[in-house]
C-alpha cells in the first residue's frame, strides 16, 4: 500500500501547524485532521517538504456528517483533500470540518490550481464558501439554484421557475432511501 502513516507526518508538522492530529477512520484508514486556520499552511508545507512532496491533488471532496452515526456526533461538513506525490509515489488524506451554520474554509487553489474546479463543485453541492477563491460559482446546478443538494437535510424543490418537477400524483420524500430504512 502507498498510504503514508499519519503520525510521523503529524509529528513533523506539529510545530508549524499546532492543530494537526493524526487520526484513523473507523475502518483503520489513516488521515490528518487539521483546523481550518492551519489548513493552507499545512497543505503548502506538505507540498514543499522534500521528503513528502505532495505535488498533486488527487481529489478534493466533502461529505456531510449530519446524523452520521459516529462516536462523537457532529453536524459539520467534512472536507477531504486526497494528496498524491509523483516524486515519492505515496498518498495522504487530510480532513477538516466546516461549521454547518457559517460554512467557510480558506481556498487551497493557491496551493494547487486543480483545486479551483474541485472547490467549485464542493461549493455547489455542499455550500462550503472557499474564501479567496478566484471564481466561486456553481458548476453543476444552475446559478440560481436554491440549496446544496448533497447536504443530508436538503429538501427537494417541487418547482423550478414555476415548472413542476412532479408528474400527476407523484410526490418526493425528503430522503427516499434513508427514511425507508
Amino acid at each position, binding site marked *: 500500500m502507498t498510504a503514508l502513516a499519519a503520525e510521523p507526518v503529524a509529528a513533523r508538522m506539529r510545530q508549524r501547524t499546532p492543530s494537526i492530529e493524526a487520526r484513523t477512520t473507523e475502518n483503520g484508514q489513516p488521515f490528518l485532521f487539521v483546523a481550518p486556520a492551519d489548513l493552507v499552511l499545512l497543505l503548502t508545507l506538505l507540498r514543499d517538504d522534500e521528503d513528502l512532496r505532495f505535488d498533486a491533488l488527487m481529489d478534493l*471532496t466533502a461529505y456531510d456528517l449530519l446524523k452520521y452515526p459516529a462516536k462523537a456526533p457532529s453536524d459539520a461538513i467534512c472536507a477531504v483533500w486526497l494528496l498524491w506525490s509523483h516524486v515519492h509515489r505515496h498518498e495522504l488524506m487530510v480532513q477538516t470540518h466546516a461549521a454547518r451554520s457559517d460554512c467557510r474554509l480558506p481556498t487551497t487553489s493557491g496551493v494547487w490550481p*486543480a483545486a479551483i*474546479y474541485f472547490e467549485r463543485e464542493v461549493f455547489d453541492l455542499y455550500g462550503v464558501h472557499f474564501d479567496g477563491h478566484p471564481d466561486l460559482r456553481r458548476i453543476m446546478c444552475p446559478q440560481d439554484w436554491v440549496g446544496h443538494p*448533497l447536504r443530508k437535510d436538503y429538501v427537494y424543490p417541487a418547482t423550478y421557475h414555476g415548472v413542476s418537477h412532479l408528474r400527476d400524483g407523484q410526490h418526493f420524500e425528503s430522503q427516499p*432511501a434513508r427514511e425507508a430504512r
Partner: protein
Amino acid sequence: MTVEATTPSGETMQLSMGPHHPATHGVLRIVVESDGEIVQNCTPDHGYLHRSIEKIGECVEWPMFVPYTDRVDYVCAMNANLAYCLAVERLLATDPATTVVVPRRAEVIRVLVAELNRISSHLIAVGAMAMDVGAYTPFLHGIAQRELVNDIFEKLCGQRLTYNYVTIGGVAFDLHHGAGDEIARFLDQFEREMVRFNRLLTTNAIFRDRCAGVAAVTRDEAIEWGLVGPNLRGSGVDFDLRRDVPYGVYGELGVRVPVGQCFAGRRGRQGDCYDRYVVRLLEINESVRLCREALKLLPPKAEKETDPIGGWQADVTKQLKKPPKGSVHCRTEAPRGEMGYFLVSDGTKTPWRVRVRTGSFSASGIFHKVMRGTFLADVVAIIGSFDVVVPEIDR
C-alpha cells in the same frame, strides 16, 4: 500567431460554442471571447448533463449503484463499472470479517474487458479528434473497429454501450463459448487495421502539422492542474496507475507506459495536442498486448461460479448488508485517466457518500488556461485532444 489575426483596435467578440456544438463531445458550452481569430478568454459552462449521480448513490444500495456507473462514462462503461466495484471490494477488505476474494478467472476477465473497452474508447477519442480538425474518414475507420468490440461485449453480456457487467465480487457472466478465439481473431485483424489507420492519419503531414505545438502543457503544469491519464502522460509524466499502483492482475502483466516526447518533431512541443494523440495510439497497442497476455493467464472454467480459481462471481450478499463503517479511496486507470472512488459507509446497506473523481473534470479545469492565445479554430482541436466526455464532467 500573426499580427493580422487580431483586430487593429483590439476589440473583442463573445462567441458561445455549444451547448450543441458537434465538436464539444456532448452538451458542453464554451463561451469564447476572441480578438479577431485569437482567443482572449474562454469560460467553460458545465452542468447540462448533470444527473446527480452522486446523490443517487446515497439513495440506492451498494450493488444497485453499478448500473449508474455505466452512465458516469458511457464510452468506457466497463472501466467505470470496474472502478466502483474495486472501491467497494476495498471497503469490504478493511474488515477481515467481510473480505471478499474475487475469483482469479473473474480478475482476468475484468482486465480483458477493461482493455478491450480502452481500445474502443481511445478509438473514439482519436477518431473524434481527427473529425474535429476536419478529417472525417479516420473516425469511420475507428467506429468500424469499435463495432467489433461492441459485438464481443454484446455476446458477453447482452449490451453494447452500458454493460453493467463487472459486479462487486466478480463479473456477471462467464465468458461465452469461444470468446477467447473470437477476441484473439479480433486483435489480429485490428492490428492490421491500425497500420492503415496510422498511414491515413498519424503520419499524415497535414494532420501532424495541424496539431503540432498547439496547446502544449508542460510537465509541472500538468501535475499541478491535476491532469491524469493520457493527458498527463502526453506532457511527459511517466505515471500509470496500472503499473505504479497496480490493482487486479495488472501487477503480473507488466504494463508498459508510453509518454509524450515531442512526437511531432521540429514544429512540435512536448505535451502538445499531437503528443496527447500519439500517447493514446501507443496505449491502444499496449492494450492489444495486455489482452493477449490476459488470455494466456485465463484459468479454465470451474463448475461452480464461486470457485476461487475458475469461478467468476464470489458471493457478497451477506457482506453488502453490513459493510464496515468508515471510508475508503480507490483509484483506477480508466481511458480518460484516473477514475477514483471515495466511499463513506455508515455500516448499512446504502452508501453514506459516493464520490466519483473523473479525468475529464480536471481536464476541463485547465481549458481556460491553455486556450488563451490560441486560434479560434484550435479550440475544437484542444477539446478533442483532451478527450473530454461530458457526462463524466457533469455526472
